[in-house]
């Protein structure tokens, strides 16, 4: 097992930073609808979990499962690009 690599989050290389952003945006677009909705409302719009449950008519548990799956997928996409722990 290769050692984990530390991700560089804020790239000094502006083109690289924009490429990563584009990658993430594309990956978000490809998520199943409900996962995309939860991730967008939570992590982009900053709604609380209670608010998201209300908007999407979800139980807390369901919301968390969708959030988990969506975020896990996005992490995997970034990992494929940047390398590191899996």
């Amino acid at each position, binding site marked *: 097992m290769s050692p984990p*690599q530390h991700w560089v989050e804020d790239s000094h290389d502006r083109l690289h930073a924009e490429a990563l952003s584009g990658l*993430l945006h594309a990956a978000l677009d490809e998520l199943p609808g409900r996962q995309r909705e939860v991730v967008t409302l939570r992590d982009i*719009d900053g709604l609380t979990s209670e608010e998201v449950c209300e*908007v999407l008519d979800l139980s807390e548990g369901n919301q968390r499962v969708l959030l988990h799956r969506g975020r896990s997928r996005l992490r995997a996409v970034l*990992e494929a690009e940047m390398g590191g*722990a899996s």
Partner: protein
Amino acid sequence: MQVVELVTDYLEGALPRSQRRRFESHLRGCEHCTEYLEQMRITIRMTGRLAIEDLTPAMREEFGRLYARWLAG
């Protein structure tokens, strides 16, 4: 790997205390899982920097409808 499954629950503060302690104890001894958690935090931060304007027109429409329904009560 349990950290992979529990990471969202942990970040949401949804783990029962005993489970959270086991989780954190594991992290202290495991560089791999510590890195995984950090990657998840970075993923969330980077997602947060995607602006609404970056979304496709279809996605913006989707969220516009959701919000309109929500505000209509």
